């Protein structure tokens, strides 16, 4: 017997914490770190669900998610460096102006 409820609660907590950080922080790098926290919650959830059903599909999904996270980190940080070189600040508010 394996109780899955604590794992789901914990992964939901991590996801919610990451969401709060994503919504409220203004530093571009911290915003991307918050998405990585959300990824951690999802990985934990996938593995626990896969274990509950007794197969490894959850783990394989999590491995693919890991490669996507690596791609996302590389490209997003490249974009952040470009944005920083243009304006000299990491503040997300400086990129909030959008005209039609």
């Amino acid at each position: 017997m394996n109780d899955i409820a604590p794992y789901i609660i914990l992964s939901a907590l991590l996801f919610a914490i990451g969401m709060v950080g994503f919504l409220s922080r203004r530093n571009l790098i911290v915003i991307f770190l918050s998405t990585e926290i959300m990824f951690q919650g999802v990985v934990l959830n996938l593995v626990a669900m896969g274990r509950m059903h007794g197969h490894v599909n959850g783990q394989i999904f999590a491995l693919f998610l890991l490669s996507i996270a690596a791609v996302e980190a590389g490209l997003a940080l490249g974009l952040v460096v470009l944005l920083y070189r243009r304006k000299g600040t990491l503040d997300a508010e400086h990129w909030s102006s959008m005209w039609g």
Partner: protein
Amino acid sequence: MNTEWSFMVYATFALGAAAVYFLLPHTGRSTKTAGHVLGVAALAATMVLCASKFLGTEGANIFFYLSAVVAVGSAVKVITHEKPVYSALYFVLTVLAITPLLILQEAEFLAVALVIIYAGAILVTYVFVIMLSQQGGQPMHDRQSREPFLAVFGGFVTMAAIAGQMAALPEEKGIVGDFAVAAATTAINDRGVDNTSLVGTAMMTEYVVAFEVAGVLLLIAMVGAIAMSKKRVPAETALTPMPVPGKVGREVEPF
């Protein structure tokens, strides 16, 4: 369904949400102390609640609780710390706290891969970028958060919705009806093969197309990252009057 217990769970979530709200960077008077006190109280309340409910079940042993407390605490530190370098280092702690949970779930390969890729590769990239773009002193945007109350409220509602859905599941159907019905799981290792070889076999047979696509995706990302890093952008001085609409994009010479 035990309504009193559900109410206590929601109260604990609200306590944690208040802690995150107070810990987020604010202008004016520092509310860090109140945030820390509330956070410790929320964690302790969660421990007591969980201990009263899950004690004796295999899925929630002492290792789970230790790792969970470290993971949640360091995750909160990641999103609330005013210095991005510390945020990144606390994120390493979160990854290292998730790892034992994955091992408890019989996912040893994934646990090690997580440490190597996240703590070893991705976080180095993050720290590198932070060092590259670190200004002197603490800039204003790190000491201020954007709509902290609404963000925390949104997170709390998400959390409460997930917990409420889990609690509302009927016991015979639900995986976690009333949070406590132990789901009968078949151990993956019953077949006498270890987990890593099962993952490898499935990856190379059933998911081989997706595996190749992931390789192509990594290649494309590498090409894109190199192209972006070679691109020249005109440096605007920060905090100057906003540029003419639509002008910025056209001024950039294509690579």
